[in-house]
């Protein structure tokens, strides 16, 4: 009995292994290829108002979607938006499901090793959210709480680094699960960004959550697969144009009720162009 099981396992693994060997190398993508194709596939978040979310009629909308639409117009092609979760963003880009990400992606050095960022087109703050009654003045005060974060998000990185190992950090698949966990009391604090609280306020006007700590300013850039110099150069130029003609500022006012922040001209460890 055991030898036939062993044989089956071996055969099964062999079959899978053979299948995985049949791979072809990635092809670089240029702006012309996208123009020829007639459509640009853009990954956006599907559950983070006001950046990327489904509006009441079920269509993707938000800051990132508006910027993506403008970029597609400049390219002269149709924009095809793909809603995704924070933890799936990079995987979706790397496995070629989308051409670029406008997915509220914070520009951090670890990520810059995996993807290529352009210069920033948006900014927000990464914060810790908790109930008004919780006394949290520094991160260590939160060490005893159940904290929810979106796996792989900037707040995950910040909180994991800042708290001692063994802290009760719950990493959910996506932002909606974290918000759900916070609102239902499954977690007592949540790593979030400044727009979370706006959204919670809209639905629960009498909510008792407030911003407790600010971890850092986060800047968001368009992410593409590494090595795509042509696309990256084009995107940087396009973002400069959108800043210059005020369209980016209009989007910022529309979705965050604030004018466009001053973006840093460089970020340590995060190149804006292909090296």
């Amino acid at each position, binding site marked *: 009995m055991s030898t036939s099981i062993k044989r089956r*396992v071996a055969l099964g693994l062999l079959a899978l292994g053979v299948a995985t060997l049949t*791979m072809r190398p990635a092809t670089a993508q240029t702006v012309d290829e996208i123009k020829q194709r007639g459509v640009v596939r853009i990954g956006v978040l599907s559950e983070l108002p006001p950046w990327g979310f489904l509006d009441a009629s079920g269509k993707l909308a938000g800051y990132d979607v508006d910027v993506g639409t403008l970029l597609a117009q400049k390219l002269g092609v149709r924009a095809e938006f793909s809603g995704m979760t924070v933890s799936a963003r990079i995987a979706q880009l790397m496995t070629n499901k989308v051409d670029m990400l406008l997915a509220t992606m914070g520009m951090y050095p670890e990520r810059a090793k995996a993807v290529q960022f352009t210069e920033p087109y948006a900014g927000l703050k990464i914060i810790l959210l908790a109930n008004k009654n919780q006394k949290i003045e520094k991160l260590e005060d939160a060490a005893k709480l159940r904290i929810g974060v979106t796996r792989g998000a900037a707040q995950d990185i910040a909180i994991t680094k800042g708290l001692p190992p063994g802290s009760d950090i*719950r*990493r*959910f*698949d996506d932002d909606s699960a974290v918000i*759900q966990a916070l609102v239902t*009391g*499954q977690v007592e604090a949540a790593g979030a960004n400044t727009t979370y609280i706006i959204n919670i306020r809209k639905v629960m006007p009498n909510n008792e959550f407030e911003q407790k700590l600010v971890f850092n300013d986060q800047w968001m850039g368009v992410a593409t697969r590494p090595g795509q110099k042509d696309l990256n150069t084009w995107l940087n130029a396009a973002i400069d144009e959108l800043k210059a003609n005020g369209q980016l500022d209009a989007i910022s006012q529309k979705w965050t009720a604030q004018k466009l922040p001053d973006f840093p001209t460089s970020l340590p460890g995060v190149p804006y162009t292909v090296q």
Partner: protein
Amino acid sequence: MAFQFDFDAVLAYWPQLLWGCMLTLQLSLLAMPITLGIAILCVYVLQMRERVSTVVIGGFVEAIRNTPFLVQIFFLFFGLPTLGVRLDPNVAAILALGLNGAAYAIEILRGGVEAISRGQVEAGVALGLRSVQIFRYIIVKPALRAVYPAMTSQFIFLMLTSSIASSITASELTHVGAEIEAETFRSFEVYFTIAVLYLVMSFGLSRLFAIVGRLSFSYPTR
């Protein structure tokens, strides 16, 4: 970082992966007694053939069997707190797995119980055994022996189903895998490795159950 497979990056996490396997086994082994306990209790109640309890149990079984586990576990984890009941992810997972398994176990066990011939039960009554004793020695034990393959197969399925608990951050292998993926960005390699680990655990459990079965049920029946 082009499209090449890099299993080394994932295999470097082998302590976490091993720990993840332990966690999954722990979760499943804690859910199994719940499943078995509820199943035995419900089958006992069913054989009393009372109208109300039969309908309630039947309703429970049908509800669980015709809705996805993901929805069941979301209901317990995100829905119950609005009623004031907050369950920890692992507790919610064990409860959800236990209930889910029970719905199937009840049907399996019931089949085994109904196959016990009336003659056996009548003999028990004639020997002066109490109702509970009859149920325990004449009905349940032989039934469990008869349905043991189907039941253990269900338990292994339960272990595989536990992977869904990763979405409520329960401590188990798939969740560990997701965290490794978040650090290495190697989705395919991580999940392939994890799948192999589940395969190994399935075979391991199946061998374990075979041994347990041989030890528990090798008393003569004739």
